[in-house]
């Protein structure tokens, strides 16, 4: 039972444009959300996170938006760069939980 869903397996964006990656979740107990970035043959690396008490968190070119009523979050990358080409995983955690629940990932390709 997939509690964190990334319904777009892939996304292609031109360099300089905005990339929007989406994530939906079903468990209302989730209160912390993270985005990880993964390059081929490497482990995932933490990118940005957001607590459920906020609706937006920004770090440089990366912004995560959280819509709790819709159980939806999105990652915006502005402007997109070719080095952003990677697989992006959405993950969620419930307070007092012991693990992260990961989505299947979205493969982003930023073309010059």
């Amino acid at each position, binding site marked *: 039972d997939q509690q964190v869903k*990334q319904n777009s397996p892939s996304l292609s964006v031109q360099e300089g444009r905005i990339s929007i990656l989406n994530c939906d979740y079903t468990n209302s107990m989730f209160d912390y959300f993270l985005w990880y970035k993964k390059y081929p*043959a490497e*482990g995932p690396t933490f990118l940005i996170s957001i607590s459920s008490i906020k609706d937006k968190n920004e770090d440089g070119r990366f912004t995560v938006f959280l819509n709790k009523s819709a159980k939806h979050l999105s990652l915006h990358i502005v402007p997109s760069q070719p080095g952003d080409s990677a697989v992006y995983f959405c993950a969620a955690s419930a307070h007092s*939980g*012991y693990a*992260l629940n*990961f989505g*299947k990932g979205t493969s982003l390709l930023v073309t010059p």
Partner: protein
Amino acid sequence: NAGVTQTPKFRILKIGQSMTLQCAQDMNHNYMYWYRQDPGMGLKLIYYSVGAGITDKGEVPNGYNVSRSTTEDFPLRLELAAPSQTSVYFCASGRDVLEQYFGPGTRLTVT
């Protein structure tokens, strides 16, 4: 700091063989995790540990065993390898569940 290291990087096993995937971290983290990632899928938790001597099952523990005798090491044991265990295995560590640093992964093929 080496961070999280995993050995081997690649391995091919025959059905029924056993092996141990090694994971070590030098950040003095209490939390350590083993995940597997199948093609086109997210990471699924196999086992986790919140400190030396303490381990517990994750979402997909069948066919695996772990031990945590030191803070630094968290080996994953595969007994009687099966084709369904063909996957990429990631070890991670952190100060808590919200902070996870991942190793580079071990690509395992069981034929």
